[in-house]
C-alpha cells in the first residue's frame, strides 16, 4: 500500500506529492516484479510455465513504461533529464556533458528551455 511508505504527515504533503508518491511506489513495484519474473523464468524447467511468466513479465514492463511517462508529464525536472538521456547514443556519461558546460559546442541541444508541465512545482 503506497500510503504506508510516507515519511511525512499526509496532511503536509498535498495532492501533487501524494500522486507522485503513488506513481513512484507503483513503478518500484513493477520493476521489482520484472526482476522476480526474470529469475523465475531462468530457474524454471517447465517450458509452459516459462512462457506464461515471460508474458506476465513483459506486461509489467509496459506498466512501468506508462507510469514513467506519467511521471515525466508531472515532474519537469525529471522530464529534462529523461530528454537528455533516453534514446541517446554513445557513452551515457558523456551525453549530458555539453549541456553541463564541460566544454564542447554548447548550443542548448534542440533549443528548448525544457519548461514542460509545472504541476509538480511547489507554489
Amino acid at each position: 500500500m503506497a500510503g504506508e511508505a510516507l515519511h511525512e504527515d499526509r496532511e503536509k504533503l498535498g495532492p501533487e506529492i501524494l500522486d507522485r508518491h503513488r506513481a513512484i511506489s507503483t513503478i518500484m513495484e513493477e520493476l521489482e516484479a520484472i526482476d522476480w519474473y526474470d529469475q523465475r523464468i531462468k530457474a524454471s524447467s517447465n517450458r509452459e510455465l516459462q512462457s506464461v511468466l515471460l508474458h506476465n513479465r513483459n506486461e509489467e514492463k509496459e506498466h512501468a513504461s506508462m507510469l514513467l511517462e506519467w511521471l515525466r508529464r508531472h515532474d519537469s525536472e525529471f522530464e529534462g533529464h529523461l530528454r537528455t538521456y533516453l534514446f541517446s547514443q554513445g557513452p551515457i556519461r558523456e551525453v549530458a556533458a555539453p549541456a553541463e558546460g564541460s566544454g564542447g559546442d554548447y548550443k542548448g541541444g534542440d533549443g528548448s528551455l525544457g519548461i514542460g508541465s509545472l504541476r509538480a512545482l511547489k507554489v
Partner: protein
Amino acid sequence: MNHLYRELAPISDAAWQEIEKEAQRTLKTTLAARRLVDFVGPEGWKASAVGTGRIRDVDPPTTGRVEARLRQVLPLVELRVPFELRRSELDAIDRGAEDPDTDPVIQAARSIAIAEDRAIFHGYPAAGIRGICEGRADAAVLLSDDYASYPVLVATALNRLRDAGVDGPFAVALSERCYTSLTESTQAGYPVLEHVQRLIDGPLVWAPGLDGAVVLSMRGDDFQLTVGQDFSIGYLDHDAERVRLYIEESFTFWLESPQAAVPLVFPEAKAAP
C-alpha cells in the same frame, strides 16, 4: 542546425547558458496555468493541430450520393517575442561578469508567459482557444475590494463546482491585484491568503496573466494544454553592437470541461462587453 538558427548567433557557450538560465527562471516564476492544467507534449515544431473528434458537414466535391465531413481540429498557435541583447554585455559574461544586463531576456520571457496564460484563462478567439474563465462566465462570483470577504467568495465558487458535480482537488489562481491584496490584508491576525489556502486541497497560484481569480478542479481531464515546440530561444540577426534573438513556443488549449472552473470577476470586468 534547426529552425532556430542558434549556431549562427555570435554568442559563446557561457552566454547562451546565462540567457537560458534567465529565461527559465522567469518562465517558471510567471507561468501559472501550467501549474494547474493537464500538459501534453512537447510534440515538436512539426506538430500543427490537435484533433477534437468532431466533424462538420461540408459540401461534397461532387453531386449525387456523396457526403462530406470535415474533421475539426484545434490548430497550434505560434507565439514569438523578439528581443535584443548588447554584445558587450554578452562578452562580459565570458570575462566572468556576474551581473550582465539580461533584462531584455527577462522581459521577453515574462511577456510570452503572460500571453500563454492569458490565452488559457481568458481565451484567444483568433487561435480558436476557449479560456478556462469563459466556460462558466454565467456562474461567475463577483469580487470586490473588500478582501476580507474573499474566503467566503472562494467558498461560494467551491460550492458551485460541487453543485455541478465537480470534485477536487481544487486550486485557486489569483491575479496580481488579488494576490497582492490578500497577502497584505489580515483577518483574525493572519493574512487573508492563508484563510483562502485552508479552503482548498490544491495549490494557490499567483497568476499575473489572469484578471480576477478562478477556482478550478485539478481532478484531471478537464483542461488540456498541448505544446508543440516548448519555449525555445532562436536567432534572428546581429550587427557589431547587438544580437537579435526571440523566444517562441507553439501550443493550443482545449477546454474539455467548462463546468470544472468558476471565475471570480471584478464588477467592471463583468460589465465589459
